[in-house]
């Protein structure tokens, strides 16, 4: 629940620009996550949402922890690209990963 998230759970820096950007982009984040390949999406959601360790994710999805690490990194790279494109199109971002 976005509104109900306790401040202590958030990794936000408290920077106003980031807070605003985060609010604007939240729906787009959801869309970008949905567009990820399923194997990547599963790993990144188990990590970021369920808080499972790479070892536990590996057990759940049935692959080595090294593969989990790689899938999560690829998922994040893809998400950053998608979000940077979205932000650039609307003039609200500063670009993403080069």
């Amino acid at each position, binding site marked *: *629940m976005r509104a109900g998230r306790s401040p202590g759970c958030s990794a936000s*820096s408290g920077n106003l620009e980031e807070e605003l950007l*985060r609010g604007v982009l939240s729906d787009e*984040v959801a869309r970008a*996550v*949905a567009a990820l390949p399923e194997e990547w999406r599963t790993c990144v959601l188990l990590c970021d949402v*369920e808080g499972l360790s790479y070892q536990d994710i590996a057990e759940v999805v049935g692959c080595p922890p090294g593969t989990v690490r790689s899938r999560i990194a690829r998922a994040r790279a893809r*998400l950053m690209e998608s979000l940077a494109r979205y932000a650039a199109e609307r003039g609200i971002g500063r670009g993403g*990963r080069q």
Partner: protein
Amino acid sequence: MTCVAFEMLSAGVDGVLSEHESHGVQAHLATCERCRALRAELVLLKASVRDGAPAHPPSEALKARLVASVVRRRRLQSSAIWVAAAAAVAGVIALGVGRPWRANDLLAQLVGDHVLITLNEAKPLEVRDRDASAIERWFGGKVDFALRLPRLDGANVVGGRVCNFAGRRVALTFYDLQGKRMSLFVTDREDQVGEGCSEGVRGFTVCREPAHGLAYALVTDLPAAEAQQLLRTGLEQLH
């Protein structure tokens, strides 16, 4: 200057780097503004994915795999107990039987039950009620103690079920805190549950507190300090 691999930065945000890797990354970040900015974006992204999560509940297939994984762990733990019990019956050394569980086993099982029941609609609540008194009455006769439920600030009790834990029937109750489910285990065996608060138990926080002759264990994704405060305040207000 060679920048840190993106995969390494990503893993660093999850706190899974080895000590050696972590030192290397930190040393590089101290000198590279570009990597520092990238890392900050990764931290922000992780928080954003987490906040956007309700739109993406796990698929049925994933839930099944997650549940199966927890069940497999529990079976392994149960097997160890049965082997020890059989050894005791045979007059061999009673390995661990009758002693409190090792803390890690206990915490893992509490979290395992929390995940198992929260995700598995096939194993629903046995009682659904937002009235704590009604839930306390429902547990009467089902567990060997008089259940007393604390009021947890900002959270609503939603129901419960009886749960077998280390050979005892314990009360497992659920609270809703702004859309997030928390599990509160209650037993009369203080010696088996102990006291303390642990963060990062398979991604969850487990806080254990004795009160009024009972032992309470709260499983939540709140930070440890917040969870402990929530549970302690609730228990202090119990008369």
